[in-house]
C-alpha cells in the first residue's frame, strides 16, 4: 500500500514538474559520465580516450535516458500523451483527410446520440418533476379475450374509491382524467386540463416553481376551487409572474384560485410519448360542477362523474412496501369493479411500476427505429475505415521507418488507434451541437423530452471508443503487418491490385449492402406513412377544421343555432373558401376522416335496415352533415344527389346519403330510394329516411392490412338539436390562409366563443391521435436519417472508388502505353465496380427484406415497401456507384500515359 502511494506521489510529482525531471535525469547521466571520465583520467588515460571509452561503456546518453523513461512508473501514460500529441500533429497536417473523416463520422455520431437519447427517453426515463419516481405504480384493470389477449378496461370513480380504500396502508393512490375546458385568462381559451383527485400532487410528490398543490375543499362549499398551472401556461399567459398564486381565473363559468405553478419538467405521470401535456390541473369537483351545468358535451369536455373513466390511477408505495403487496391487496377487488364485459374470459387488476406498460408497448418501436442510426453510424465508420486504409498506404514508408528503428508493433498500433480515437472524439464534439439542434426539432415533432443525461453520455463515450476501434483497428493492423524492409521498398501502386485491396473492397460491399438495407427500411417506413393518408378527399393541408366550445358558455339551443348558422353562411360566402359544412363530429377521427367513428355520444348513428335481416340494427360510421360538407371534405357524389337546403329544414331528417361501401355491402348495390331507419345512439324513436345519394368511400388504414372503407350513412341536420359542431372548410389555397378569416368571423359573431380544435386537418390529426402522430413523426425522422445515410454512403463510395482507381493510375498508364483503349480501361473498372455493387446489392436486398419482415412482425402499423421502392433505392445506389467509379477512371484514362507514369 505504502509502495503504491509512494509511486503515485512520484507519478504526480513528475507530471507536475516534467521538465525539471527531464533535466535531473540528464544531469544525473551526465554526472555519471563525468565521474567515469575522471576515474579513467586518474588511472592514466588521456582525456580523449577516457571520454571515448566512458561513452562506449555508457551505451549512449539518450539510450540510457530512454531506458529510464520507459521503466519509470506511469511510463505508458507518458507514451499515450506522446502518441496523442503526435496524432494531433499528424492529423493537423492533413486537414482534408481529417475533415473528411470527422465530417462523415460526426453525422453518424449525431444520429447515434440522438438514437440513444430517444431510446433512453422511451425506455429508461422515469416521470420527471416528481420526487422518488421509482416508488410510483399504476393500477389498471385488464380483460382477457381469446383473440386479443389481455387488453385494458376502464376504472370508474366508484372503482377508484374501492381501490383507494384497499390500498391506503400500502400505496395511497390518486387518479386523473383529461378534458378540454374553457378558461378565461381574461380572453376565453380552450385549454387541455388534467382533472385530478385532491391528493394527486401529494401522491406524485410533484415539484412546484411557486405555490403548492390543489387544496382540498368541501363539496359544494363556498370557497373557490383551486387549480395548478403548468409552467408553460404560466410563462405564456402570466409572463412568469410569481405573484400569480392566489389570483382568480374562470374555468368554465366558475371562479378558481391559482394555488401553484408546477415545475417546468412536470407534466403528470409518464404514460408514454403520446401523452398530451396538460395546460392546467383542476380538481374533480370543479369538473363535476362544469359537467352539471352543461346539457350536452363535446367529447373532450369534462364528462359527468357517472361516465368518467379514470385514465390513470397512480399510487406511491409507502416506504418498505412492495409492489407484490399492493397487487395482493388490489387483486380481490376485481369482483366489485363496474366494468364487466360479456365475452371476455377473465379480468384482473394489475399493479405495475409506472411506465412499465408503456415501455412494453413502445419497446418494439424503439427496436425498429434504433437500427437506423446504428446503420448510419456503421456507414460513417466504414467511410472512415476506408479513408484510413487509403492513408495507411500513403504512410507505409513512415511506419516502416519507425518499425525499422525499433518501435514495437504494439506501439505503432496503439499510436494509430489513438489517431482513430482523436478522430472519433473530434467527430463527437462536432456532433453534439448537431445532436442538440436535431433533438430540439425531434422533441418538437414527437412532443417528448429527450435529455442528454448521464446514461446517454456514458453510452456515447463507450460508442466513441468502439467506433475508434471499429474503424481504426483494421488499418492499424494492416499498416504494421508488413516487414519494414518491404514497407520501405514498397511502391504505393501495388496496393491497388485486386488481391491486395481485398479489405477495402469488402468494405465497399458492406457499405453497399448497409446502404441498400437502410434505403429499403426507409422505403418501408415511408410506405407506412403513405398508407395512413386519406385516399380520397380534400388534401389534409387544405381542409380547415374548427370545432367550438359553446356549451361551457351556457348558450341556449337558439343562441347556438344562430351562432352556427351565421358562421356557416359567412364562411361559405368568402371567396377564399371552396366549400364549407358542419358536422357534429369528434373533430377528426384518428385517421383524419371526419365522423368515421361509430356510435358514441356525438359520433356516428344507429341504423336499422330490415331487408338486411338485422333485427336490432347496428352502429354505423357517418353522422349528421350540414351545409356543403361533402364538398368541403372532397367526397364526390357518385349517384343521386347531396343534401339540399330543403333537406336541412325541420327537426327530423327525411333523407340520407350513404357511401359506396354501404351501398355495396348493405344495400347490395341498389341504394337510391331505399328506406333506412336511423336513430342517434340507438336510443329514441327510429326515424325513416330515404337514401337519395351515394358518395365515394373514404379509406383508412387498419392494423397493417392495407386500407379499408367502412360503410357510412349521413343524414342532414337542422342545426339546433346538435351542439358542439365542427366546421369543415376547404380552402382554395391552404388551411392556414383561412385561419385568420375564420377567427375574425367567429370573434365578430361572439367574442366569448373559444376554439376547441383549430387548424388544418393535418394539425388536428396530429393533436387528435397523438400515438399515430408520434409514430408518423418518428418514421419521418427515421426516413430523413435514411436519406442522410445514403448521402454518407455515396460520399464514402465515391472516396473509396476514387482512391482505388487513383492508386491504379500507374497500371492504367502502362496499359494505355501498351496500346489499351480508354474504353477498355473504363469497361474493366466498370465491371469491377459493378461486381462489388452486385454482391453488396444482393446482400443489402436480402438484409432489407429480412429487416422488413421482422419490423412487420413486431409493429402492426407498418406495411411492406413495394418492389418499385426497392428498385428505386437500388437504382439510386447504382447511379452513385457509377459516378464514383467512372469519374475517377475517366479522369485517369484521359491523362497522357507519360504524365501518369511520371506522377506515379
Amino acid at each position, binding site marked *: 500500500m505504502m509502495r503504491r502511494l509512494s*509511486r503515485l506521489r512520484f507519478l504526480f510529482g513528475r507530471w507536475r514538474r516534467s521538465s525539471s525531471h527531464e533535466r535531473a535525469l540528464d544531469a544525473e547521466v551526465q554526472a555519471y559520465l563525468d*565521474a567515469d571520465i575522471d576515474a579513467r583520467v586518474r588511472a592514466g588515460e588521456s582525456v580523449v580516450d577516457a571520454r571515448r571509452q566512458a561513452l562506449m561503456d555508457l551505451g549512449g546518453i539518450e539510450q540510457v535516458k530512454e531506458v529510464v523513461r520507459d521503466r519509470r512508473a506511469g511510463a505508458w501514460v507518458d507514451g499515450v500523451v506522446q502518441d496523442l500529441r503526435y496524432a494531433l500533429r499528424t492529423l493537423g497536417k492533413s486537414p482534408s483527410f481529417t475533415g473528411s473523416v470527422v465530417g462523415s463520422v460526426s453525422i453518424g455520431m449525431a444520429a447515434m446520440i440522438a438514437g440513444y437519447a430517444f431510446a433512453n427517453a422511451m425506455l429508461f426515463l422515469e416521470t420527471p418533476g416528481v420526487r422518488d419516481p421509482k416508488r410510483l405504480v399504476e393500477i389498471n384493470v385488464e380483460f382477457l379475450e381469446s383473440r386479443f389477449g389481455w387488453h385494458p378496461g376502464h376504472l370508474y370513480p366508484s372503482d377508484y374509491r374501492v381501490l383507494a380504500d384497499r390500498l391506503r396502508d400500502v400505496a395511497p393512490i390518486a387518479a386523473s382524467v383529461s378534458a378540454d375546458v374553457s378558461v378565461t385568462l381574461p380572453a376565453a381559451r380552450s385549454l387541455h386540463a388534467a382533472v385530478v383527485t385532491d391528493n394527486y400532487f401529494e401522491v406524485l410528490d410533484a415539484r412546484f416553481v411557486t405555490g403548492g398543490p390543489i387544496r382540498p375543499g368541501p363539496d359544494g362549499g363556498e370557497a373557490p376551487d383551486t387549480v395548478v398551472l403548468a409552467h408553460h401556461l404560466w410563462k405564456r399567459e402570466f409572463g412568469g409572474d410569481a405573484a400569480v398564486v392566489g389570483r382568480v381565473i374562470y374555468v368554465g363559468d366558475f371562479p378558481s384560485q391559482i394555488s401553484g405553478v408546477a415545475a417546468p419538467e412536470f407534466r403528470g405521470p409518464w404514460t408514454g410519448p403520446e401523452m398530451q401535456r396538460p395546460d392546467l390541473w383542476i380538481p374533480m369537483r370543479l369538473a363535476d360542477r362544469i359537467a352539471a351545468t352543461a346539457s350536452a358535451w363535446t367529447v373532450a369536455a369534462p364528462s359527468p362523474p357517472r361516465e368518467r373513466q379514470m385514465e390513470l390511477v397512480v399510487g406511491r408505495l409507502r416506504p418498505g412496501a412492495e409492489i407484490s403487496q399492493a397487487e395482493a391487496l388490489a387483486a380481490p377487488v376485481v369482483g366489485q369493479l363496474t366494468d364487466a364485459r360479456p365475452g371476455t374470459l377473465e379480468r384482473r387488476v394489475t399493479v405495475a411500476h409506472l411506465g412499465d406498460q408503456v415501455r412494453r408497448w413502445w419497446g418494439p418501436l424503439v427496436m425498429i427505429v434504433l437500427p437506423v442510426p446504428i446503420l448510419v453510424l456503421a456507414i460513417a465508420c466504414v467511410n472512415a475505415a476506408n479513408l484510413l486504409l487509403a492513408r495507411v498506404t500513403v504512410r507505409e514508408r513512415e511506419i516502416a521507418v519507425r518499425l525499422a528503428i525499433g518501435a514495437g508493433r504494439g506501439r505503432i498500433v496503439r499510436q494509430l488507434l489513438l489517431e482513430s480515437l482523436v478522430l472519433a472524439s473530434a467527430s463527437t464534439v462536432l456532433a453534439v451541437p448537431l445532436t442538440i439542434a436535431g433533438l430540439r426539432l425531434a422533441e418538437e415533432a414527437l412532443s417528448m423530452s429527450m435529455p442528454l443525461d448521464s446514461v446517454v453520455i456514458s453510452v456515447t463515450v463507450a460508442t466513441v471508443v468502439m467506433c475508434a476501434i471499429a474503424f481504426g483497428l483494421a488499418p492499424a493492423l494492416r499498416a504494421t503487418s508488413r516487414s519494414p524492409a518491404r514497407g520501405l521498398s514498397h511502391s504505393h501502386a501495388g496496393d491497388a491490385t485486386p488481391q491486395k485491396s481485398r479489405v477495402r473492397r469488402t468494405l465497399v460491399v458492406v457499405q453497399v449492402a448497409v446502404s441498400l438495407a437502410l434505403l429499403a427500411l426507409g422505403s418501408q417506413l415511408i410506405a407506412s406513412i403513405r398508407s395512413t393518408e386519406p385516399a380520397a378527399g380534400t388534401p389534409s393541408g387544405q381542409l380547415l377544421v374548427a370545432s367550438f366550445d359553446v356549451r361551457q358558455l351556457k348558450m341556449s339551443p337558439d343562441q347556438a343555432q344562430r351562432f352556427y348558422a351565421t358562421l356557416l353562411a359567412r364562411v361559405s360566402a368568402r371567396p377564399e373558401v371552396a366549400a364549407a359544412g358542419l358536422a357534429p363530429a369528434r373533430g377528426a377521427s384518428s385517421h383524419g376522416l371526419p365522423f368515421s367513428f361509430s356510435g358514441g355520444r356525438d359520433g356516428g348513428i344507429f341504423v336499422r335496415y330490415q331487408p338486411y335481416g338485422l333485427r336490432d340494427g347496428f352502429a354505423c360510421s357517418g353522422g349528421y352533415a350540414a351545409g356543403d360538407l361533402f364538398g368541403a371534405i372532397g367526397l364526390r357524389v357518385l349517384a343521386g344527389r347531396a343534401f339540399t337546403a330543403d333537406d336541412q329544414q325541420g327537426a327530423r331528417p327525411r333523407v340520407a346519403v350513404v357511401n359506396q361501401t354501404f351501398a355495396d355491402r348493405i344495400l347490395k348495390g341498389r341504394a337510391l330510394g331505399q328506406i333506412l331507419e336511423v336513430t342517434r345512439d340507438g336510443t329514441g324513436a327510429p326515424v325513416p329516411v330515404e337514401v337519395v345519394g351515394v358518395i365515394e368511400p373514404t379509406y383508412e388504414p387498419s392494423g397493417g392490412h392495407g386500407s379499408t372503407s367502412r360503410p357510412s350513412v349521413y343524414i342532414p341536420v337542422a342545426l339546433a338539436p346538435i351542439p358542439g359542431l365542427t366546421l369543415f372548410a376547404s380552402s382554395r389555397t391552404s388551411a392556414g390562409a383561412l385561419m385568420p378569416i375564420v377567427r375574425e368571423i367567429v370573434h365578430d359573431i361572439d367574442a366569448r366563443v373559444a376554439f376547441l380544435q383549430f387548424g388544418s386537418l393535418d394539425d388536428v390529426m396530429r393533436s387528435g391521435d397523438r400515438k399515430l402522430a408520434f409514430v408518423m413523426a418518428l418514421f419521418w425522422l427515421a426516413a430523413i436519417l435514411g436519406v442522410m445515410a445514403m448521402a454518407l454512403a455515396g460520399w464514402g463510395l465515391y472516396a473509396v472508388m476514387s482512391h482505388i482507381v487513383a492508386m491504379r493510375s500507374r497500371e492504367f498508364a502502362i496499359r494505355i502505353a501498351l496500346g489499351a483503349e480508354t474504353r477498355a480501361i473504363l469497361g474493366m473498372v466498370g465491371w469491377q465496380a459493378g461486381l462489388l455493387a452486385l454482391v453488396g446489392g444482393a446482400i443489402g436486398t436480402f438484409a432489407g427484406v429480412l429487416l422488413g419482415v421482422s419490423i412487420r412482425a413486431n409493429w402492426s402499423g407498418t406495411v411492406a415497401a413495394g418492389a418499385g421502392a426497392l428498385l428505386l433505392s437500388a437504382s439510386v445506389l447504382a447511379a452513385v456507384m457509377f459516378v464514383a467509379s467512372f469519374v475517377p477512371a475517366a479522369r485517369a484514362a484521359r491523362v497522357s500515359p507519360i504524365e501518369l507514369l511520371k506522377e506515379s
Partner: protein
Amino acid sequence: MSDIRKDVPQGTLDLLILRLISREPMHGWGVMQTLKLLSGDVFHVTPGSLFPALQRLEENGWASAEWDTSENNRKAKYYAITKAGRKQLERAEEHWKAVNMAIIRVLEGA
C-alpha cells in the same frame, strides 16, 4: 576471469544497491564501482540497468535522493536508504539467504 564476469543475478540488483546505500549515501557511479569492487570484479552493472533500478528504489520510497558535491567537486545525485528501505532490505536479505541456502543444499546434496 572474464568468463565469470556476469550481470547481477535476476532480481537481486535492488537488494545489492539497498545494502550499499544503507552504509552511506552513494551516487550512481559510486554504486556501480563499489559493486564491482566488492564482488571481486564479477558484477558488472550497466548504466541501462543501474539507473532504472535507482529510479525504482526512489519510486517505491526505499531510497531518497539529493544532489550534493562529490569527492571530485562535481554535482552528483546521492541516494540514501529510507526507513521503508531498511525494512525492505531486511526482508529481501532474509529471503535471499533462505533461497541461497536452499540452492546450496540442493547442489551439495545432488
